[in-house]
């Protein structure tokens, strides 16, 4: 008999094995929900499927009585806008500073200590500062995401730039390249797919900061809605929102990895 470490599932078995935990959780939920409802028909903690349906229908497919907007989609759009703005700004800053500090030792010596120091500040601790400085509008929420993930991106890309074999830099120099040309043609293109890797890792953190900021000061957004209806113990709204956020996070990750495979085939083939 083969050792356990050598047994590999076939493709269909792998899919089946992967689905089982999802089904188990759903079954467990359904069972508990039915139990609780049998005891107390007004139980709010574990709503039934029909309650979910009506909550989703109310928020996503019926215009709000007060504003005439579809709250669910409005929340989604404003949250995604904040998230993407924050992540894109952070990516741009992280790429530029990480690449330059990794490529040019003099600038690295100049900026690395301050980047390390900033990265140690817990971003949530300076959230009040952001609200005071940038107001309670969109800017402070986007800034929280930027401050939250940029130091990680800078440090990661600094390391990725350093990791590029020095043989390549020597080779480029013997081909007559100056520093700027080496950064532009040798380092930058090779760091871009690594930026996508780093972004995928930091997206979870970005969501965390987004929802935290929305929970504290916002008038719309996925995080705002969750914390608003918490007061009424509206699990029928909270749970679908959580599932939706999870789904959005999955889609963003999927888009990033697939874009990377398409644009940088050489990177994924080497790995």
């Amino acid at each position: 008999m083969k050792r356990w470490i050598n047994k590999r599932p076939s493709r269909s078995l792998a899919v089946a094995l992967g689905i089982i935990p999802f089904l188990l959780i759903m079954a467990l939920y359904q069972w508990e929900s039915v139990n609780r409802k049998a005891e107390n028909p007004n139980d709010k903690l574990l709503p039934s499927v029909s309650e979910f349906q009506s909550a989703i229908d109310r928020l996503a497919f019926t215009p709000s009585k007060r504003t005439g907007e579809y709250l669910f989609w409005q929340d989604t759009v404003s949250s995604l806008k904040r998230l993407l703005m924050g992540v894109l700004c952070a990516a741009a800053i992280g790429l530029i500073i990480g690449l330059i500090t990794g490529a040019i030792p003099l600038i690295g010596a100049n900026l690395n200590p301050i980047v390390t120091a900033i990265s140690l500040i817990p971003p949530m601790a300076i959230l009040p500062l952001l609200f005071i400085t940038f107001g309670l509008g969109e800017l402070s929420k986007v800034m929280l995401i930027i401050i939250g993930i940029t130091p990680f991106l800078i440090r990661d890309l600094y390391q990725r730039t350093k990791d590029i074999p020095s043989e390549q830099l020597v080779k480029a120099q013997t081909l007559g390249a100056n520093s700027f040309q080496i950064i532009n043609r040798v380092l930058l293109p090779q760091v871009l797919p690594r930026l996508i890797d780093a972004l995928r890792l930091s997206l979870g953190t970005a969501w965390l900061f987004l929802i935290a900021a929305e929970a504290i000061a916002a008038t719309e957004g996925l995080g705002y809605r969750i914390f608003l209806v918490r007061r009424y113990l509206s699990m029928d709204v909270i749970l679908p929102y959580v599932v939706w956020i999870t789904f959005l996070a999955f889609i963003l990750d999927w888009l990033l990895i697939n874009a990377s495979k398409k644009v940088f085939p050489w990177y994924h083939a080497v790995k």
Partner: protein
Amino acid sequence: MSNDQITFHRVEKSYGDNLILENINCKVKQGEFITMVGASGCGKSTFLKMLLGIESQSSGDILLEGQPIVPEPSEERGIVFQRYSVFPHLTVKQNVAIAKEFEQSLIGRLFGSKRKQALEEAEKWLDAVGLLHAKDKYPHELSGGMQQRLAIAQALIKHPKVLLLDEPFGALDPGIRKEMHKLVLDLWEKYQLTIFMVTHDLEEGFYLGTRLWVFDKVRHDPHAPNRYGSTITFDLPVGQTDNKSYHEIEQSLSLNVATA
């Protein structure tokens, strides 16, 4: 001025108390093919690095055409490493053409007709190393031997005064290695190159070079192994070598390996 292309005069290299090379004196003429052998840690790679400009000598002079050598890598010296010397994110053709792009564009990227011209010249050099059929592939799609052919084509497009090879075929299969030997000899003859090649294969050194250098320590202090550095102990015109000196060198190398 003499017709020596490269001169080492009393060159010494140490890292702290660790003396690697001492008393290196040599003159090399244009068109010579120097092969360098020695036990590991004998300093032959350090010698090559000084020639390349990524290490500088602790004392002494290194002259290239009568001028002190530039202490960083430059266009005068081409290099082929054992690994990692091609750009993984560029196709074969782009890997060679990029030298032209560095030369003609401030940002290192050409467009339109100039780009086409650069790519055409690149194809010429790919043809010279027998890699034209793979011009649109990425390096990861090439075998080890083909990657080294590409690295050679990259270096040749710059017409370097000196071509440095750092154990270029060390990772290749014996059959492929034979093909590469033939290629290097052909190119050396055709383009009148000056070649320095580090190898750990003595036979390869004898077969390829016009001149074989052996790096070894002449003095040993058993209590302080780093007290003395290596120097060039044999400098043989390989064309005239007899079996006796081959075995003599082989023996000194294997002795070193045994004591290392």
